[in-house]
């Protein structure tokens, strides 16, 4: 079963997953969503990069950060064009579900995936919608 990671766990995975995250994934295929990935890239683009890259010109610093957050080919992202209509119907039918949340549910449906999120960014909207649709949703302690 594919594991759909939220942006926090995606960051953790790309930074070098801890044993708890490895156990939760269990060598299953990984995926994330366009909007979770976009949110991660937004944070990375705003990061100051600190002393590590501070000597580099801005353009080269951005290239380095872009390379570091580039998704590995092994992580699936379902194109928005394949999800958009389902996202629309989910938002229409489920109160409290954000656009980001609707993409997560639609992607999990499309992939037959289970959703794995950080406990610190647990989403009642996604959780409830997944429960209604029989999609597995779980969090791990962060």
């Amino acid at each position, binding site marked *: 079963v594919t594991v759909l990671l939220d942006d*926090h766990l995606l960051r953790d995975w790309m*930074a*070098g997953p801890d044993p708890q995250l490895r156990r939760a994934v269990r060598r299953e295929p990984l995926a994330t969503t366009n909007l979770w990935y976009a949110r991660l890239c937004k*944070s990375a683009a705003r990061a100051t990069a600190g002393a590590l890259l501070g000597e580099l010109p801005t353009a080269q610093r951005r290239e380095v950060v872009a*390379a570091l957050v580039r998704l590995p080919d092994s992580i699936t992202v379902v194109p928005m064009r394949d999800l958009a209509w389902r996202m629309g119907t989910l938002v229409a039918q489920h109160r409290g579900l*954000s656009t980001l949340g609707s993409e997560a549910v639609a992607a999990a449906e499309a992939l037959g995936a289970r959703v794995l999120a950080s406990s610190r960014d647990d989403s009642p909207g*996604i959780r409830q919608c997944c429960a209604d649709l029989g999609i597995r949703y779980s969090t791990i302690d962060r």
Partner: protein
Amino acid sequence: VDLGFGVLTVPAGTAGRLLDEILPAEEHYAAVAAEDDPDLVTG
């Protein structure tokens, strides 16, 4: 690490550690908590 303008060769795992230093988990949690784009809020 393919930088576009060149390729940086680093030992295995170094790219992940660089990412962890450039964007620590706490910094991303803080950015998400302060997210003001309604399409990107958790929900």
